[in-house]
């Protein structure tokens, strides 16, 4: 949005097809005065111009459409006054999408066309340039005399009554205020061959106030190339962006900002009456409270207190001078969440009393979503790190223990006195190489646990996977003459990762068979039910059982085997637990020595 009403100079906004989109009153008057034509919204601007003007204008305009701010110097001649145009791209939301260009006209003064002062008076006499924010000055380098127009004197803080009467004193008076530095800047530019120069310098007004001057000017040269004079336009360059603006313009700009900012603002008096708010505040307030904001209403009536239990306390804190800041999450239909940041900032008067409160509201959903995503990644990295620690533990302990045994065996081999001893050592070497191989396989299993960030969930027929696991274990089942009771309904479907479910079921079933009691026929019962809307799978056996008091804490640890069972690898449960927990579930275990064990997997 461009607030064209803020300009006192003739200003109009054209769309990319040169059609007039907006036009202010000074522009209407100027076009009428100069061309005797009407400039109306929708009219085609180039036809208003003379042929040479049109050619210049169209060329510069296309540059503005690419995003450049373009100045056309001495674009229009009107009477004895030369007029510049400043073309500014009007950006929409995106910086690349330029659909409109604003054209602002301002007066430029060419000294060799009669007296400068006379020209300035002429410019002043044109109502549409009356409010121009530019002052001009001219320095004759031969005589070292400087001339300023009324606007320039005004910018420097003078009024008609305190401008020195003797023009010969002007240079000295202005140098006193810091003008000399501007002149030397131009002087250096002139001697380096430039014909135009632009600079910003800190000077003082006659009143003592600091003033940042933006100066843009031309250097005229004698026929022999020696600089003859400097003619320049200058305007105050305010540090807050409003420096020398008249109050009305700055109020206009502020209004434009207030209206278009992405932050919602509500302005309250100390009685909590809503004095003012912007459109964004109204939108956000509607989202947060389900109520409309109404001016002159008390803010407490506009707030949904059920959602903002502490709002009354917070606003009282703000009235006591505290700056309050907090975040609120609003659940939207469809499971989306919207996050808002709320700030209550007290406004103080000269005696530090709170006179007003500004509430600012900002939609921080995107930032919040990033934050949540970041936390997720952090958890993932932590889990990965934990696995790496386990990994380094195995490397440090298990691999080293094999290495240590190999070292000892080799020593014995080298020193062996008898052939029998040598044969024995080679046998040992074979044992170590087998266990080393197994350890390496296990390491591989551990690294391959959930390395992908987002696992696929699929609806899976649970029984299909149980059947597959039983097929794989059929040899052991047969060998141990085990009875498998599968009580899972044929149609149970769970939403899970296929690779994980396969590994989880296989692990529990193979454990149930592995730790069977040699004294009785193994019976393994598989069951499935629903708890709190989620499926639970149980695998029960009548095996040797686990002393949970003693080993419960180590049950799922890495490489913890405790049954004296020679093929216990102690890695299956570790992996299974990791997989179940990674998918958001948990494992419970009940066991009694000599009776059996039941594992429950909460998916």
């Amino acid at each position: 949005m461009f607030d064209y009403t803020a300009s006192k100079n003739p200003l109009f906004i054209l769309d990319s097809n040169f059609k007039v989109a907006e036009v202010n009153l000074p522009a209407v008057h100027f076009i009428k005065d100069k061309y005797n034509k009407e400039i109306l919204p929708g009219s085609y601007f180039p036809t208003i111009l003379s042929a040479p003007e049109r050619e210049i204008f169209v060329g510069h305009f296309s540059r503005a459409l690419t995003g450049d701010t373009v100045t056309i110097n001495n674009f229009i001649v009107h009477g004895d006054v030369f007029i510049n145009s400043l073309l500014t791209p009007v950006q929409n939301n995106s910086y690349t999408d330029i659909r409109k260009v604003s054209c602002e006209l301002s007066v430029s003064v060419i000294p060799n066309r009669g007296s400068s002062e006379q020209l300035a008076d002429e410019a002043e006499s044109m109502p549409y340039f009356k409010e121009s924010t530019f002052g001009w000055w001219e320095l004759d380098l031969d005589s070292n005399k400087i001339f300023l127009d009324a606007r320039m004197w005004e910018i420097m803080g003078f009024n008609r009554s305190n401008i020195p009467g003797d023009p010969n004193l002007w240079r000295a008076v202005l140098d006193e205020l810091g003008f000399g530095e501007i002149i030397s800047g131009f002087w250096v530019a002139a001697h380096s061959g430039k014909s135009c120069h632009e600079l910003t310098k800190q000077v003082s007004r006659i009143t003592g106030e600091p003033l940042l001057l933006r100066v843009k000017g031309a250097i005229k040269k004698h026929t022999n190339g020696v600089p003859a004079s400097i003619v320049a336009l200058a305007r105050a360059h305010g540090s807050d962006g409003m420096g020398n603006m008249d109050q009305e313009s700055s109020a206009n700009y502020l209004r434009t900002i207030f209206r278009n900012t992405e932050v919602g603002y509500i302005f309250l008096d100390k009685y909590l009456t809503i004095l003012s708010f912007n459109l964004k505040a109204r939108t956000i307030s509607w989202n947060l409270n389900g109520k409309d904001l109404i001016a002159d209403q008390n803010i407490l009536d506009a707030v949904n207190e059920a959602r903002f239990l502490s709002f009354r306390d917070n606003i009282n804190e703000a009235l006591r001078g505290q700056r309050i800041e907090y975040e609120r999450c609003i659940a939207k239909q469809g499971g989306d969440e919207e996050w808002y940041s709320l700030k209550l900032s007290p406004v103080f008067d000269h005696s530090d009393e709170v006179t007003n409160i500004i509430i600012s509201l900002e939609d921080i959903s995107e930032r919040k979503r990033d934050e949540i995503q970041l936390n997720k990644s952090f958890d993932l990295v932590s889990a990965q790190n934990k696995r790496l620690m386990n990994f380094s533990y195995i490397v440090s302990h298990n691999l080293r223990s094999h290495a240590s045994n190999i070292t000892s065996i080799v020593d014995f081999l080298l020193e062996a006195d008898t052939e029998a001893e040598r044969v024995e050592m080679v046998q040992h070497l074979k044992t170590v190489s087998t266990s080393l191989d197994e350890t390496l396989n296990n390491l591989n299993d551990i690294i391959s646990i959930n390395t992908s960030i987002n696992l696929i969930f699929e609806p899976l027929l649970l029984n299909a996977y149980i059947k597959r696991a039983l097929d794989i274990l059929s040899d052991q089942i047969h060998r141990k003459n085990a009875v498998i009771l599968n009580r899972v309904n044929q149609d149970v479907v769970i939403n899970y990762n296929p690779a994980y479910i396969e590994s989880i079921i296989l692990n529990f079933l193979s454990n149930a068979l592995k730790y069977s009691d040699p004294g009785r026929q193994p019976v393994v019962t598989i069951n499935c039910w629903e708890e709190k809307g989620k499926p639970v799978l149980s695998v029960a056996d009548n095996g040797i059982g686990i002393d949970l008091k003693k080993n419960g804490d180590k049950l799922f640890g890495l490489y913890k085997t405790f049954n004296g069972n020679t093929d216990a690898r102690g890695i299956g449960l570790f992996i299974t637990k990791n997989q179940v927990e990674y998918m958001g579930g948990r494992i419970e275990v009940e066991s009694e020595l000599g009776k059996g064990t039941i594992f429950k997997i909460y998916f």
Partner: protein
Amino acid sequence: MKKVETICIIDDDGLYTLLLKKKIEKLNICTRIISYSNGEDAIAGISSLLDSNNLLPDVILLDINMPVMNGWEFMEAFMKLMPNIGKKIAIYLSSSSIAAEDRLRAQENAAIENYLTKPIESEILLKIAQLN
């Protein structure tokens, strides 16, 4: 050469125990070697020997990572037995773990003589025999 009466190996790695036994026998630094495959068995074994001081080990080579009762848990249980033990038993922690954490923990425990990294070299075994 100085000889120790009894050396006790507590380790779940059967092959390691066998090889260490062989090494100790070759070095001829003790008259008797006993071994247990975890901390619990060792505590049970030592408890049964409490009445016969001369059968109690003089040196224990203790592994850290063992099933049922690991080296640290053994130390806890052993400390409880200590008042009933009539002689000094030198405990050496031996592990293939090169984790600094284990080494530090061993240093902090006054009842542990030293921390040894597996495999225990012959020179170190000889030194242990000399010290005890």
